[in-house]
């Protein structure tokens, strides 16, 4: 294993240790506030960007403990150059290892902060469900190619990392989403990306999504 791979593994291990320690530290003596929303309540979701569309609507269904969330979003995006629109279906699962932390009261409301969650998404172009205007965005490889020649181009898998602010039944979140092409590029070309793009190169491979969830 080369030096770069070793360094990355060490950083990953340190991050995991920090997160575990942070979780223990942060939950000590936290005020248990009756205004913390129930962890297992479903939510309506409205998100902008984050590879799910200019705007996307959906639902969030958490597990009873609130540790896992399953989100489905239907979005629409307009291409800048051509002006053409396409739909996107995003199916996300996320892991929430840290319960929201009380940070303050404001205007009679308790504000909680969930510092970190992570998960995986599958983002589908609407070609998956209908004919596309070209056969180069596809769910099934066209017959003219041998099996396995190209991966499906109408589907992207992605990694999400996010944080949220919780006020009563409202959850405002920000997520960084990286498709697997972006993750692969970041892993193999980290030096180039960090030297040429902002935010340690993440600007080149990630998209920010901002959204709001309303529990019901």
């Amino acid at each position, binding site marked *: 294993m080369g030096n770069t791979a070793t360094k990355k593994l060490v950083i990953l291990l340190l991050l995991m240790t920090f997160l575990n320690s942070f979780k223990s530290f942060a939950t000590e003596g936290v005020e248990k506030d009756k205004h913390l929303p129930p962890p297992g309540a479903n939510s309506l979701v409205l998100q902008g960007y984050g590879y799910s569309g200019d705007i996307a609507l959906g639902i969030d269904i958490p597990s009873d403990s609130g540790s896992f969330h399953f989100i489905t979003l239907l979005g629409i995006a307009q291409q800048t150059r*051509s002006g053409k629109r396409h739909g996107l279906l995003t199916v996300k699962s996320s892991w929430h290892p840290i319960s929201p932390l009380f940070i303050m009261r404001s205007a009679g409301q308790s504000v909680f902060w969930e510092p970190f969650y992570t998960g995986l998404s599958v983002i589908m172009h609407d070609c998956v469900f209908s004919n596309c205007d070209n056969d180069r965005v596809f769910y099934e490889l066209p017959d003219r190619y041998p099996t396995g020649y190209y991966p499906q181009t109408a589907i992207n898998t992605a990694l999400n990392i996010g944080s949220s602010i919780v006020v009563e039944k409202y959850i405002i979140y920000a997520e960084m989403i990286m498709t697997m092409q972006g993750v692969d590029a970041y892993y193999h070309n980290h030096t180039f990306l960090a030297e040429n793009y902002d935010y340690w190169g993440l600007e080149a491979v990630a998209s920010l999504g901002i959204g709001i969830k309303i529990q019901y």
Partner: protein
Amino acid sequence: MNLHKAITVVTCFFLILGCKSSPWGDCPENCQSERFSFETNLALLKKKEKSIQINEGRTYFKVALISDSQRHPENFDNVIESINKRQEDIDFILFLGDLTDAGLEMEFDWACKILKKTHLPFFTVIGNHDLLNYGEEIWRGIFGPLDYSLSFLGTKFILFNSNKMEYSSAPNLYFVETEAQIGTGEILFHTIAAAHVPPSDSSIFNSVESSEIKDVFVKSGIHLSIHGHLHKFSYAYDKSRNLYQYIISRVEKNRYGILTVTRNEFIFENCSGDSCSVALPK
């Protein structure tokens, strides 16, 4: 800090990161420049040609050949850096396709970021991977036509789309034949074809199609074709047609080629970083 300020600070921080609405976007931010267009680069090339004819009088020239940079922007960046060190010696750059792996907006963005670093004229041919998703539309918007020709110091280059699997009308052999015709008053010492997929690639072209392409080359006065796609340096000579074929490696390990064209011969160098060795003539 009150609630509103806290939300504003957090939101503004994240907003700076950049919001992209879809992986299938078609407008890479770093490609929004005329620097990449065929017309701009042709004008740069013509200016250089005039300067050489007036000031230097040399009849030979060198072209850097790069191919298949997909998934390796770091290596592509290193190659451009190596070429830039020789920009007094190299006259222009030809990129032989597969700038991207899936024709995605972000991949084009990385490539444009790199290409901005060279002052040499550069010209491109589209690769099969570049045609995936909305790659063709993005490519045309950045670089221009998929088939075109240019001349430099008595040599004509015919650059065309040979991606038969992705483009039903490719290769356009009528275009190749027409462009190869010598115009009134035009003096040509060589005509060179450049396309991503070589006609010798039997996984794309059957033997009849391959022969047809090579026959068109010969009929058009083309005796050298240069390609990428196969990811390693290779050289072939079809004796029956007097037709040379030079294939450039992908950029992994900082590889690229240099073609020197003189009135009488072609010299091929295989390069890795700052080190080059003559592959042919032996």
